[in-house]
């Protein structure tokens, strides 16, 4: 008797699993950046258009394929066409790369979480230098939050060539992160189904709390006004539309095989169309929600820095001209500056180079994304709040939930094809397979805990998934529409769920979405070719800031390998299947 496939206990678990996977760190740290770069409120227009034209149809396609084929990505695409097993394999390879480097973020979140239980927070004060007369030099030149991130957490080396050795503290946190992931995926859907209740819902609770706290902070309205003021001229900028499309694409996690894996555990009669629409809408609204929180925090931080800058200028002038203490305030600063310039021109010109131009706009305009946003900008804002330990703990706990939720999807994409394959699952129980996958990923992930680890992390983050995913999803769409046949798929879905397929989905799958993906692909390739050499940001400890450097040849080789290893799966497996079939046909002579 065939062992029945494990199922989600109820459809809600499936929806939560998809939300937990799709709503990840990108919603928190990439979307606000894009919003700020491409016109604030007006960025929402291309974003919504791309959601409806590209996001929802492709999400529905993946869920439908998974639910219909009831197998992981490798098996599903093999069923659609034996030549397309490579698509599934490419998805598994990309998911493997992703899970390798993604969990280091959870390790960093654990590190910051554990350090949040101290008073004062370790990133709020600079450590003293050797003779206790001042602060550490690197910390003075940069800021205490940057110092804590680059020196204490990463212990970053000056360039990617200086590898250094494995740092035991982040390594311990990485091991813990993998243990937690293993705990959640140990029992398959049984354990994952219960964990996703937490990983899906808790981030929203924390975001709500942060929204209330953020909006009541001094200066928060500056940030929100800055974000939502639409700059309509950006709508004409093609980069805004391209970035909106890319963001939707990666935010929903298409092409990794995780969605196919999740949907394969569904009841065949599940209404995946409704779920696709719900998940994509929730993902988008979470992005917008997180942006509001982020921008109120930005506004607070910018206002705080602006006021500190003003206070420094006031102190400088007061000391240089021996003015009465408390006479200079922010309101009369300009007047007094003018008066001093005219009355003591010599002395004023001496002091002038030391005076920084304080501008609220320039503070707000510092757009940051990625780890810089979470671990530097947010921590800087948190250290200035009251009861900063509480806010810090809440924030990093939320990051952990988001990160682990996404990891569950990534590992499901790898494990489902492995457990589906009869060869492997007959020899090893499910727990052992999961354990092996986690172990291998953990050992490879130790590379990111080295001193140059952050530079390798950036390589993986920028290049491991981008081009490959576009190609994978393009082949997926073409496979379903033209190789399998859109009519055949439509009748399959109707038989399975009892509902027909709307003309809108058919039009998008067959026409619009492939065109869009091709244009994205062309844009990315041309961008890579035009930029010439690839560069990266390295931390210079002496200057206390980031500098741009070129990648060495072996790093470029690794980048090429990353992209090639996943994209080449598709043609190689197709070729391999073709050859095996030819050989089989050659062996068995045709019946007379």
């Amino acid at each position, binding site marked *: 008797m065939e062992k029945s496939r494990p199922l989600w206990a109820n459809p809600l678990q499936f929806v939560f699993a998809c939300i937990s996977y799709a709503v990840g760190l990108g919603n928190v740290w990439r979307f606000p950046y894009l919003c700020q770069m491409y016109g604030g409120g007006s960025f929402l227009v291309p974003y919504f258009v791309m959601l409806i034209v590209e996001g929802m149809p492709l999400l529905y396609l993946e869920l439908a394929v998974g639910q219909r084929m009831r197998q992981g990505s490798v098996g599903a695409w093999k069923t659609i066409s034996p030549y397309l097993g490579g698509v599934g394999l490419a998805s598994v390879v990309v998911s493997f790369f992703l899970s390798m480097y993604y969990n280091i973020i959870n390790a960093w979140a654990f590190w910051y979480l554990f350090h949040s*239980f101290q008073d004062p927070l370790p990133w709020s004060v600079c450590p003293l230098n050797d003779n206790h007369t001042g602060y550490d030099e690197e910390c003075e030149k940069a800021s205490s939050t940057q110092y804590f991130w680059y020196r204490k957490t990463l212990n970053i080396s000056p360039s990617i060539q200086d590898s250094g050795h494995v740092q035991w503290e982040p390594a311990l946190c990485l091991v813990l992160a993998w243990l937690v992931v293993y705990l959640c995926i140990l029992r398959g859907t049984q354990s994952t189904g219960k964990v996703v209740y937490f990983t899906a819902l808790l981030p929203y609770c924390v975001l709500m709390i942060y929204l209330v706290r953020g909006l009541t902070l001094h200066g928060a309205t500056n940030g929100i006004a800055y974000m939502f003021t639409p700059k309509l001229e950006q709508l004409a900028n093609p980069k805004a539309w391209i970035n909106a499309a890319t963001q939707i694409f990666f935010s929903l996690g298409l092409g990794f095989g995780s969605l196919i894996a999740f949907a394969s555990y569904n009841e065949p009669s599940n209404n995946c169309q409704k779920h696709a629409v719900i998940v994509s809408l929730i993902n988008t609204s979470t992005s917008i929600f997180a942006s509001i929180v982020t921008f109120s925090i930005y506004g607070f931080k910018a206002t705080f820095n602006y006021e500190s800058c003003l206070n420094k200028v006031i102190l400088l002038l*007061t000391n240089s001209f021996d003015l009465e*203490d408390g006479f200079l305030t922010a309101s009369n600063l300009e007047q007094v500056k003018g008066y001093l310039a005219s009355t003591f021109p010599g002395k004023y010109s001496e002091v002038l180079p030391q005076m920084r131009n304080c501008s609220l706009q320039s503070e707000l305009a510092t757009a940051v994304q990625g780890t810089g946003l979470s671990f530097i900008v947010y921590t800087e804002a948190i250290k200035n709040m009251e009861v900063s330990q509480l806010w810090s703990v809440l924030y990093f706990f939320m990051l952990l939930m988001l990160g682990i939720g996404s990891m569950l999807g990534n590992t499901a994409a790898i494990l489902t094809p492995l457990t589906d394959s009869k060869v492997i699952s007959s020899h090893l129980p499910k*727990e052992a397979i999961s354990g092996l996958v986690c172990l291998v990923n953990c050992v490879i992930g130790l590379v990111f805990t080295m001193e140059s680890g952050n530079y390798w992390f950036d390589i993986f983050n920028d290049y491991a998934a981008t081009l490959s995913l576009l190609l994978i999803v393009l082949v997926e769409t073409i496979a379903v529409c033209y190789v399998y046949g859109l009519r055949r798929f439509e009748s399959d879905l109707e038989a399975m769920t009892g509902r027909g397929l709307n003309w809108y989905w058919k039009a998008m799958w067959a026409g619009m979405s492939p065109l869009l993906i091709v244009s994205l692909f062309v844009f990315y390739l041309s961008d890579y070719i035009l930029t010439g050499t690839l560069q990266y940001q390295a931390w210079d400890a002496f200057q206390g800031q980031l500098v741009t450097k070129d990648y060495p040849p072996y790093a470029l080789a690794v980048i090429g390998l990353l992209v090639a290893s996943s994209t080449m799966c598709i043609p190689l497996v197709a070729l391999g299947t073709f050859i095996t079939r030819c050989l089989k046909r050659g062996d068995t002579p045709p019946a007379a």
Partner: protein
Amino acid sequence: MLCLLFFLVTAIHAELCQPDAENAFKVRLSIRTALGDKAYAWDTNEEYLFKAMVAFSMRKVPNRETTEISNVLLCNVTQRVSFWFVVTDPSKNHTLPAVEIQSAIRMNRNRINNAFFLNDQTLEFLKIPSTLAPPTDPSMPIWIIIFSVIFCIVIVAVMLLILSGIRQRRRKSKGPSEVDDTEDKCENMITIENGIPCDPLDTKGGHINDAFMTEDERLTPL
């Protein structure tokens, strides 16, 4: 003659205490920044207290126990509030070396600050760096404690899940061999549900199922 001497003394005084003079230090106070509404005005009485504190600090230095308040000279008091001071020796002819004054002030910085309700940032002695308080380092970093706790909890949970999974699988593999025994037992066992015995449907043919009410009782009598 006396007038000339007096004139000479004040002239020498003026020379000893001057901005950027040898062995002179500039002091800067930010009273309003520190105390806000409770700020006091800086007058000659406060200056007297300052002179007394400096003399007190110098008295703690070996060989300088005879320093008097009159040995401390203040000059160039501005609105800021800032001024320069020097400490002269008992003969009042030359000033004490800067190094001695510096170490004396550093030793007693806290007492001087407290006398004026100020701190190192609001009562500044330019060119005398203050000793910063070393951060309190606990013997074991706190983060390791929390890490160990969570690590142990996760390991225990993983072990429990793995062990229960193994036990479940052993029970299942024993299951098929026990099925024949249980089938015999079934015939002797009568399952009871809701207080009414349920009999297997086909083993005892024609038996009334008590779970259902009899026809007569179901219909209410007219």
